[in-house]
Structure formats: C-alpha cells, structure tokens
C-alpha cells in the first residue's frame, strides 16, 4: 500500500519538539521541509533562522542552517546569497525579529531586491521571552508588557511591515496567509511555494507572512487560538496576495 503522507526527506526524525502544543511553527517547518523535497531545493538550501522560538529550527529541518543574530537574518542572507548566488537562501523569522529589531534589515534587503525568500511568522507576541508586546500585537491585546491591553497612546499601532515592503519595486512576491485550519495550511504551502519559486526563477525578493497561533502566550487552547486568528487577527492583518510582480519581472 502506498503511504499517502510520507515523512518529508528534509525533516529530522526521532526528535522531541520544543514547541508548545498548538504552536504554528511545527506546521510551517513541515511545509518548508515538504517544499524542500518537492521543489528539489534541499541539497542547495541554506536557511537563516532567527533569535526567538525558531532559534532551534535546526533541530527539525535537515538542511544547512545559519543562526542569525536577533533581527539580522536578511543581512546575513544578503551576505550569503551575494557570494553564493547558486544556493537557495531563505530566512525564517518572527515578528519581533523581522519587524522590531530587524526593521532596517528587512526594509533595506527588500528595497535592494535581494534574491532571497523570507518566511515571516506573525503571532502578535514575543513567544520565547514569555509573551511581551510585539510590533504586531493588536490594539487592546493583553501581553506581559501591556497588561491592560495595547494602548495606541503609549504603545503605538500594529505594524504592517509586509504591506509596506510589498510596495517596493524590488519585492516580487508578497502574500499574507494563516495556519488556522486545513485550508489555511494548504494556502500557506502554496504561498511559500510561490515565494520559493520566485527565487528559483531568479526574479528577486519574496516574503510570506504567516499568521500563526501562540496558544501559550495568548492564554488560549489551540482550538481557540485557531479561531482567534480567523475571527480577530486576520481582520487586522487581512489575508491575500499583497503583490505579485512575477509577470512584470519575466517580461523584462
């Protein structure tokens, strides 16, 4: 009998996950591992992983990995891809990493149109450090540093950095998706496939923002956190393709 859902080749076996129950990282890791195999990228891929929960991503992804200083992923990926344009280089970053401490690196690597792919996990909170406010925390959302809820008077507003970089000429593909159920997971895989293909085709920069559950820090059950993404978070961060300039790039 043919196994319908085999273990991905570039996903390590026999490891115990450090991610919390209901966390979205494991889902996206698996999607990356599947695409590494399906798109035949695993042998020449280098993943730059962040400081944050996914700092240990090398425990799971069975490809070459480079750990990044907090927020500097796209700078490191720039250095790597520029000297080895033949390799497939992508970053895997969280919202604090990519849109707070690494804002400058994110914006300028996108504006240079670096030929890298960026996977941006947005869970509206600092996960690893215990649930502090992130740039993407929603208004009114309670975190350990906004105990009465995020107040724009003092804490500002949720930052839509993917929408921002999507306006840059050098950003070829940008999409926002959510791992909030089977359909969302399928859409996420498709979006990351498009982003990866953008780099494979030599077109330029691509970014996929994934709204991802953090039940532990949201103080919810996994099921509740899936629903919260659907009912609340995706209202602030609407899903969809933010830019797709692949056609234009091919015409050039």
């Amino acid at each position: 009998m043919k196994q319908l859902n085999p273990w991905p080749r570039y996903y390590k076996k026999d490891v115990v996950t450090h991610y919390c129950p209901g966390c979205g990282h494991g889902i996206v890791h698996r999607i990356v591992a599947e695409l590494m195999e399906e798109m035949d990228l695993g042998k020449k891929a280098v993943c730059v992983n962040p400081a944050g929960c996914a700092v240990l991503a090398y425990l799971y992804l069975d490809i070459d990995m480079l750990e990044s200083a907090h927020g500097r992923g796209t700078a490191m990926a720039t250095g790597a891809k520029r000297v080895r344009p033949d390799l497939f280089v992508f970053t895997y970053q969280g919202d604090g990493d990519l849109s707070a401490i690494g804002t400058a690196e994110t914006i300028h690597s996108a504006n240079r149109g670096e030929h890298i792919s960026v996977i941006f996990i947005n869970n509206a909170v600092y996960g690893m450090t215990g649930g502090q406010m992130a740039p993407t925390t929603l208004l009114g959302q309670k975190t350990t540093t906004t105990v009465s809820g995020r107040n724009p008077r003092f804490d500002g507003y949720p930052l839509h950095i993917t929408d921002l970089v999507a306006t840059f000429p050098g950003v070829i593909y940008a999409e926002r998706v959510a791992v909030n159920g089977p359909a969302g997971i399928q859409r996420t895989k498709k979006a990351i496939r498009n982003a990866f293909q953008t780099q494979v085709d030599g077109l330029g920069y691509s970014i996929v923002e994934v709204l991802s559950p953090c039940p532990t820090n949201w103080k919810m059950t996994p099921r509740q956190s899936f629903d919260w993404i659907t009912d609340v978070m995706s209202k602030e961060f609407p899903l969809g393709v933010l830019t797709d300039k692949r056609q234009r790039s091919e015409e050039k």
Partner: protein
Amino acid sequence: MNKIFMSGNHAFGEAAIRAGCRAYFGYPITPQNELGEYMSENLTKAGGVFVQSESETAAINMVVGASSMGTRVMTSSSSPGISLKQEGISFLAGFQLPAVIINVMRGGPGLGNIAPAQGDYFQATRGGGHGDYRTPVLAPASVQEVADFTYWAFDIADNYRTPVMVLGDGMLGQMKEPVVFPEMKKDFAEKEWALKGRGDGPSRYLASLILDVNEMERHNWMLVRKYQQIARNETRWEEFMTEDAKVIAVAYGTTARIAKAAIKRVRKEGVPAGMIRPITLWPFPGEIMKKTSKNINTFVVFEMSTGQMVEDVRIALEGDARIVFHGRPGGVVPTPMEFARILYREYERETKRTK
C-alpha cells in the same frame, strides 16, 4: 611589483583584494570613506561582491553571512561605526568565523571628530562585544604596513577561524606613501566547515546558541585554547634602538612613528632612548617588555588617548619599572619635539635617581 604612491585607505582595499577578499560590506564614515569607494570600483572588477549597507550593524551581519559560505570577507569603519559592529564581531567569535575588520580610528567618545586618535584600544583589545572572547588586533604604522598587515590579517582569520581587526587611525588612512603590494594570493586551504547546501552529505548548522551550560563552558575553554595558540604563534613587535637604551618608549601605530622621530632627535643630544612598538595589540607583546625591564627602569608610554595601552604595559611589567604616560586624546596629533621633551626629561630623572 613596483612601488606605487597610495593612501592608506586605498592600500587597505588593494591589499585585501590581493589577499583573496571577495566580499566587502560597509557604510560610509569619515575618515575611511575612500576605502569603501575603492572596493566598490576595484573589488567588483576583481569579481568580488560589494554592498553599501544600510548600517554598520547590517554590514557586519552581511560579513557573517558571506563568511559562513567560506568567502574571504572584510568590512571597515571608523570608531562610532565600529561600536555598532560589535554585535556581529561577538557572533563571528562565537561561530568561529573568519573575517577582517578595519578600524580607521577617530576622536571620541560619541561622534567625537574626524581627526586621528587611538581611543578605541580598550574596545579593540578586550573583545569589544559581549561574551568571553578575544580579537587579534594588528597595528600598522605606515602605508606599507597597512598593506602587509591587511594581507596577513586574512591568513590569521582563516588559520584560526576568528575575526581579526586591523587598527589604524585617520592619519594612516588619509596619508599617501610609497607602497609595494604582496602578490595576488592564489592558493587557499579548503574550508571544510563552510555552509554550501548539504548536497548528498549530512546537513550542518552554524549556531552560537549553546543552552547547555556545561557545553557552553567547554566551548569557552576551547576558544581560550585557540587564543593561547594565537598568542604563542602570532605575537609581533618591533624593537627600535633598544640595545643600549636607558629609556624605553612604548607606542603603536601613528604614535610610534612620531616616537621614532623623537628618539632620533634625543639621541643626537646623547639621550639613549629606544622603543618597543607592539605590532599585535592583542596578543600584547608583554614578555619582551618584562625581559627588557631587567636592565631598563624607565618606560614612557605614548598614546593618542588618555591612557589605554599603558594598562597593558603595567600588567606586563608587574611593577618592575617606572612607567610614565604621555597622551594626546581628542584628535590632537603630537609632534616629535613634544615626545623628545618627555624622553629628555625622563632620562634626566632616571640618571639623577640612579646617581
């Protein structure tokens, strides 16, 4: 190769290209702008990669990325920019990745000014960033040494898998002198550790995060053993007229040039002065100073700072000799006459004391 007339900033760049540097990432800052400009034109001609980054922080992290691929890579800046690079330098040390960092020092703290100074000695020789590590630091005193030491820095970086700093100042960067460059380096050792995609082999990762405290301690002691090896093999200094000296000047870089002129001047007056010039600031050539202090009782430390290297001299001599410090911080470049007066005065004191 023939002698050519070139500025220190350009010489840093040309020597790097000849040493096999194929990637440069940097951000403009005076007084080292000509170095980035030189690389943008000439490194790309040599088939290398040049990126003007959005910040010094980004530049040093691009260096990390390029170095992890096994490429010989360099960045450069001046004092305030070097402060921003410290994060990446610490990561390079933790990852054990080679890289060359040029610091063309200027007056500080803060923005300070754009004149030559030596106020970054502590930052350069004590690691500079967070964590338990050392960075080899080379201190050229002429444009020829800028070329030679930059070339040498790439070999130290690769041989020991460590970031290496070449510490110049605005004077060395801006002045032009005749220089003969080393040959274009062709043979490079294979870097087994470099990431290149797993291919058919096992996957690998470069990480500086070591959560297990015992493993982290092992990593720290392993780094220490590497630093001890660097200290044994790479410590360099120059002795100038020390054979019959009664007063020893200690100075590095631009200050050492001025001290040399001062020594020549006072020797005409019958003052037997000499100099020990540290070429590697870390590892510091302390042993030769200790040895010299068996016969000589007066050491005069000259710096363009308020007194930083003097602490290393104090540590090296362990109280065995009288140490006099004379410094000019803030971008003031002292004159040979000024140093000569100090040497003359200290020799007088020394002879009176021993009578």
